[in-house]
C-alpha cells in the first residue's frame, strides 16, 4: 500500500489529465535499487542498472497510469553491512514499495531478516548462493544459483564430453567452495572420478595461476572444471592455460559461465578458444527475443560494451517489477507481489524462464557454451541446451541447502 496520505497535488494532477477515461489515481511505485556502484563490481552494477532502465524505456507504455521510480543506492564493498543499512533506510526513510538489487551474496544474506521484518518484496539481481531465497519469504531470485549453473555440467561432462576423470579448481572463498561442492556432487553422481579439488588462491590475492595449473597438468585428468569470480581473473587464467600447454596435454577446459562472461571475453584472447562453459545466458544466443534485446542495448548504449549475463539479470529483474506493478495495479503489497511472481513465466532474452512457486527461485535453461573465433574476435557458440533447470541444491537438500545449512530455521 502506498502509505503517503493523498497530497493536495493529486486533485490538481487529475484535473490536468482532464476529463478523459475515469481511471484510478495513478500510483508511482518506488523501487529501491541497491547495487555496488563503486568498488570492484562497479561496471557490473552499472550494466545491471542500465538494463533496468532499458526495460523501463521499452515497456513503459504497459504500465498504464502507473509509473515506477528507481531510488539508487551504492552498496560499495561486499560486507553486507552497507547493503543492510541501505535496506533499512530505503524502507524507513524513503518508504520504498519494493527492493531490487543485491549483487553480492552477503548483501542479500545480511538484509534478509530486515526484508522479512519490513515485509517488502526483494528481487535479487545477482547473489547466487543457492540457499538465499530460503532466508526470507519475500525474496525472489531472477538471476541464477551457483548449483543451478554447475551441477548439470557434471553429468554432461561424463555423458557427453567423455570426462572420466576431472579436477575442480576454484577461487578460494565461500562462493567458490559452493561451486566446487556442486560440481563434485553432479559429477560423481554421474559416475565421474574427481581426482583433485584445488583452491586457487583467495579473491584478494595476486592472481597467478601458474602453480595450480601446473599441478593440474601433472595430475593428468581428462577435464578440469574451473570457477573464478566473473571478470577479475580470467585473462590471467587464459594466458596461463596457454603457457602451461594444458590443452596440448589433452586436458579439456570446462567452467562456469562467469569465466566466459561476454563483456570480458575479448580480453581472454585466442588462448580461450575451445573452452566450454555452462551458463544461463550469452549475448550470442540465437533467439528472436535475444536478438531484439541485444539490438536495443547497442542502440541505447553504443556497441562498445557487450551485454552479458549480469545485464540480462538486471533486465529480467525489471520485467519482474513490471509484472508485479501491472498485476497489482500499482498498489504494492509484499504478500500479493510474491504470489503474483510465483509461477510467473516469461520469454526472456535468455530463453523461457519461470519462478518456481515453491522456492521463489528461477527455473531456466543452462546453455553449454563453446568459445569460438567469430571474425576478428571471440564469440560463443551454444552447442547444447539443458532445459528448465531447477536449483538442484534446494531440490536435493544437499550442500549449503541441506541439514548443515546456514539457512536452517
Amino acid at each position, binding site marked *: 500500500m502506498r502509505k503517503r496520505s493523498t497530497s493536495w497535488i493529486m486533485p490538481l494532477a487529475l484535473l490536468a489529465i482532464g476529463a478523459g477515461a475515469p481511471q484510478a489515481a495513478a500510483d508511482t511505485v518506488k523501487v529501491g535499487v541497491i547495487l555496488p556502484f563503486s568498488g*570492484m563490481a*562497479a*561496471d557490473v552494477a552499472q550494466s545491471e542498472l542500465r538494463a533496468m532502465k532499458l526495460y523501463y524505456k521499452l515497456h513503459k507504455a504497459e504500465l498504464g497510469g502507473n509509473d515506477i521510480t528507481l531510488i539508487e543506492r551504492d552498496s560499495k564493498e561486499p560486507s553486507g553491512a552497507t547493503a543492510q543499512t541501505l535496506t533499512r533506510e530505503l524502507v524507513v526513510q524513503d518508504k520504498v514499495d519494493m527492493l531490487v538489487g543485491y549483487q553480492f551474496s552477503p548483501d542479500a544474506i545480511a538484509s534478509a531478516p530486515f526484508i522479512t521484518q519490513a515485509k517488502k518484496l526483494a528481487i535479487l539481481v545477482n547473489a547466487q548462493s543457492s540457499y538465499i531465497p530460503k532466508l526470507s519469504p519475500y525474496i525472489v531470485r531472477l538471476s541464477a544459483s551457483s548449483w543451478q549453473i554447475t551441477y548439470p555440467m557434471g553429468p554432461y561432462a561424463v555423458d557427453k564430453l567423455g570426462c572420466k576423470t576431472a579436477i575442480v579448481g576454484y577461487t*578460494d572463498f565461500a562462493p567458490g567452495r559452493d561451486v566446487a561442492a556442486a560440481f563434485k556432487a553432479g559429477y560423481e553422481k554421474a559416475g565421474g572420478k574427481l581426482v583433485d579439488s*584445488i*583452491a*586457487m*588462491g*583467495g579473491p*584478494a*590475492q*595476486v*592472481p*597467478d595461476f*601458474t*602453480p*595450480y595449473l*601446473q*599441478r593440474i597438468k*601433472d595430475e593428468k585428468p581428462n577435464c578440469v572444471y574451473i570457477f573464478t569470480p566473473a*571478470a*577479475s*581473473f*580470467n*585473462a*590471467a587464467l587464459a*594466458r*596461463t592455460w596457454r*603457457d*602451461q*600447454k594444458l590443452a596440448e596435454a589433452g586436458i579439456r577446459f570446462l567452467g562456469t559461465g562467469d569465466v566466459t562472461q561476454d*563483456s*570480458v571475453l575479448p*580480453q581472454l*584472447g585466442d588462448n580461450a578458444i575451445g573452452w566450454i562453459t555452462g551458463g544461463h545466458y550469452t549475448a550470442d544466443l540465437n533467439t528472436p527475443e535475444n536478438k531484439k534485446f541485444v539490438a536495443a542495448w547497442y542502440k541505447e548504449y553504443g556497441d562498445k560494451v557487450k551485454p552479458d549475463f549480469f545485464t540480462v539479470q538486471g533486465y529480467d529483474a525489471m520485467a519482474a517489477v513490471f509484472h508485479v506493478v501491472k498485476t497489482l495495479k500499482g498498489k504494492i503489497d509484499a504478500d500479493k507481489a510474491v504470489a503474483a511472481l510465483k509461477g510467473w513465466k516469461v520469454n526472456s532474452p535468455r530463453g523461457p524462464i519461470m519462478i518456481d512457486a515453491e522456492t521463489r527461485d528461477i527455473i531456466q535453461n543452462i546453455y553449454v557454451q563453446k568459445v569460438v573465433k567469430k571474425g576478428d574476435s571471440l564469440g560463443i557458440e551454444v552447442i547444447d541446451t539443458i532445459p528448465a533447470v531447477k536449483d538442484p541444491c534446494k531440490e536435493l537438500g544437499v550442500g549449503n541447502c541441506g541439514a548443515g545449512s546456514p539457512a536452517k530455521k
Partner: protein
Amino acid sequence: MEHAVQAAVSILFDGIAYSMVLFVMAVGLSVTMGLMGVINLAHGAFAMAGGYLTVTFLGNLGLPFLPGLVLAVLAVGAASIPIEHTLYVRIYNRPHLDQVLLTIGVTLMAIAVATYAYGPSPLSIKLPAFLETQVGVFGRDFPAYRAFIIGVGVLAFLALWAGFERTMLGAKIRAAVDNRAMAEAAGVNTTRLFTLTFALGSALAALGGALAVDLVGLTPRFALQYLVLVLIVVSIGGFGTIMGAFAASLMIGVIDNAGRYLYPEGSAFFIYLVVILVLVVRPGGLFGRA
C-alpha cells in the same frame, strides 16, 4: 620419482620467473626507502602505470613489444620526477604516518584514474612471436616469455649491483643510505640524488608492472594487489640493499609458488607466517642492519 623431479623443476622455474617480477618491482622501493627513509605505498601505482602504458603503446599505438616496453618504462620514470618534486619532497622529513597516508592517497587516486581511463576490466597485451615459443629446461617445456622475464630480472640485478658497487653514483647512494648528513657534508647533492633514485626506482617498478601484465592480467586493483608482496620483499630483504631485495624476492617467489603447488588451501597464510617469522627473528630483514 621422475614425476617428483619434474614437479620440482616446474616449481623452481615458475617460482624464479615470479621472483624476478617481484625483484624488479621491489628493488626500487628498497633503495628509495633506504636512501630517503620514505615509506612509499604508492610504489605499486607506478608499477600499474607501467602496465597500462605498455598496454597503450602496444595495443592502441601498435608499437612493437620491446620499444613499447622501454618507452613505457622511460615514460613512468620521467613522469615520476615532477611527482617527486611536487609531492614527495614535502614528506621526506615528515613522520612515517604522513608518508603512509599521502602515498595511500596517491594510490587511491591512481586507481580511480586508471578505472576512469581504462575501465575496471582486466586488460592484456599481445606478445611478439619470439616470446610465444617454448624452451626446454631439464626435460620440461617452459614458455619463452618466462625465460625472458628471468633474463630481464637477472640482467637488472647485475646492472644494479655493478652500478651500486662500481660507479660514482652508486657510491654516493650507498654513502647517503649509510649516513645522509655525512654524505651531504662530503659534498653529495642529496636533493638531486633523491630525484634520480626515485625516478630510477619508479622506472623499475614500471618495468615490473609491464612484465607482470602477461602473467596475471592488469586491472586497477594491481596497484594494491602487488603492494603487499613488494612490501614483504623489501622488509624481509632489508632496506637499501640490492642483494637483500634479490635474495628476498627469490625466497618469497619460490616459497609462495611451491606452497601453492603443494598445498593450495594453506597458501594464503603460508607467506604471511614466513614474514612474521623472519621479521621477529631479524627485524631489520635478512640483509639489513638490525
